[in-house]
């Protein structure tokens, strides 16, 4: 139900207070509802975004070029899912290295997560061997915009209460327990009591609000908590291009019994990643190569270029092939980023109109990302040569120390990562802050590593798991 006036709730003691209504917050509330447990979600934005509210998402970047923080996040009901692409690939076993939970534990929540994300069981994720070192996989898509899909559901719900345009101010409590939060709605301050509190405001906001809370409440938060450290995103950039003979690619699939239909047509992109052993052996970061196809003919400049650099390869095509269907391919890469302490979130001296400091994000690329891109793409190039499928050209910047342009996936991860102890993590395996009794963190800020899959599916699985965990307490 929608709460217009928080005064009616003053004496109400909700079981769970969820701060933030993005995919993580809503998924936890839905799981709690399934278990017939009441929760209240407070959302600083409205149903739709407004420029004034978006201004509060400002922040500055130190380091390499990074996307504008007001453009890559939304302060509204449903959060950034209103502008997300919808990719829902799972993280693999090896992506969860060092996490205090296993993929098996996460997969227990697959069924309900898929339901929340409208993931059809027909659209299955597959990962198959492409060569000794590389795998081929598909992308699975969700059409869910959390704001659109769940507003009416929550409006009618007996168990989920939603208060829009309600800004979190701070936590209050004693020793190791949060007793209530202060929040502001229509210029009036309210206290919300609860047994459990969940901070669920997104990759950067979780760290920002926690850093501020730690500064305000030195008696509640352990000063050793490494909040804001190990921030990550997914660097995305072009690594090269090439020429591919369609017939040869098809026969390679057939010879290697790669029979899944989505990859047999060049209408679709080809998605290739390194397998576990290759990543370990070469000490590289896992990456997804996004290979896109484009029809070209002999008059195309790119074809002429290949004819110059590899005349015998082109001659061979014309002498030996009946159908000369040639494609130009472009290869982009979406990469896991190495978790380093220097990539972090801290608080600025300048405060937003609600009195909370804006964040400063330190973000830098790492040489290992470039090295990983080069090794994986070179391996693909070798397969193309060995099987006469095509020839690839890699961008020169992969071979030198020069700076290179990247954009990012806008997948803000880390900052309040999970782990076994307070030395290198903020939350435990149940997403509860170390040395605190009843404050939980929800969302990608708890990721220990980013893998190369888009994070939302994992965010939802973790959120459902958190709902399930709280229902058992």
């Amino acid at each position: 139900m929608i709460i217009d006036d928080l005064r009616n709730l003053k004496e109400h003691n909700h079981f769970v207070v969820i701060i933030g209504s993005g995919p993580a917050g809503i998924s936890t509330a839905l799981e709690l509802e399934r278990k017939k447990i009441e929760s209240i979600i407070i959302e600083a934005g409205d149903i739709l975004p407004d420029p004034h509210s978006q201004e509060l998402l400002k922040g500055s970047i130190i380091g390499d070029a990074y996307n504008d923080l007001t453009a890559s996040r939304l302060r509204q009901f449903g959060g950034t899912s209103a502008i997300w692409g919808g990719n829902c690939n799972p993280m693999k076993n090896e992506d969860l290295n060092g996490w205090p939970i296993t993929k098996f534990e996460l997969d227990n929540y697959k069924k309900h997560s898929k339901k929340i994300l409208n993931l059809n069981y027909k659209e299955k994720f597959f990962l198959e061997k492409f060569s000794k070192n590389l795998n081929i996989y598909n992308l699975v898509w969700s059409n869910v915009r959390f704001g659109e899909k769940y507003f009416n559901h929550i409006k009618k719900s007996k168990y989920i209460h939603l208060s829009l345009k309600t800004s979190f101010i701070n936590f209050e409590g004693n020793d190791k327990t949060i007793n209530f939060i202060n929040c502001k709605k229509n210029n009036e301050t309210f206290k919300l009591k609860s047994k459990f509190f969940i901070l669920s405001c997104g990759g950067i906001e979780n760290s920002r609000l926690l850093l501020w809370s730690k500064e305000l409440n030195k008696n509640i938060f352990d000063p050793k908590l490494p909040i804001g450290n190990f921030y990550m995103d997914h660097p995305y950039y072009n690594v090269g291009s090439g020429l591919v003979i369609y017939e040869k690619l098809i026969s390679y699939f057939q010879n290697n019994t790669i029979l899944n239909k989505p990859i047999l047509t060049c209408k679709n992109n080809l998605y290739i990643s390194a397998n576990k052993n290759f990543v370990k052996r070469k000490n590289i970061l896992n990456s997804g190569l996004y290979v896109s196809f484009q029809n070209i003919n002999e008059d195309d400049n790119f074809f002429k270029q290949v004819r110059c650099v590899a005349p015998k390869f082109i001659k061979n095509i014309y002498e030996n092939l009946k159908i000369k269907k040639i494609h130009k391919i472009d290869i982009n890469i979406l990469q896991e980023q190495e978790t380093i302490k220097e990539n972090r979130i801290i608080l600025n001296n300048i405060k937003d109109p609600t009195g909370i400091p804006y964040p400063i994000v330190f973000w830098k690329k790492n040489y290992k990302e470039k090295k990983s891109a080069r090794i994986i793409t070179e391996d693909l190039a070798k397969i193309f040569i060995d099987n006469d499928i095509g020839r690839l050209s890699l961008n020169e910047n992969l071979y030198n120390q020069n700076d290179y342009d990247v954009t990012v996936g806008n997948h803000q991860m880390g900052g309040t990562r999970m782990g076994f102890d307070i030395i290198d993590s903020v939350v435990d395996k149940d997403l509860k802050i170390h040395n605190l009794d009843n404050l939980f963190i929800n969302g990608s800020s708890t990721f220990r590593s980013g893998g190369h899959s888009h994070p939302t599916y994992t965010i939802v699985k973790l959120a459902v798991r958190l709902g399930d965990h709280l229902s058992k307490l």
Partner: protein
Amino acid sequence: MKKNKRIFIKSSLSLFLLTVMSEPILNQKNYFINKFKTYKKKYSKIWILDINDN
């Protein structure tokens, strides 16, 4: 020659002071201007070829 040197030192010093003093103001003004780049730059290519390709 001496006059020119004096002028040069004076102007460099004033330019330096101006830069130093205006830095906090400039910083504040540009505080939230974030950089955003995409990979539009065209890089030189390195072809990975077979020994018999050319």
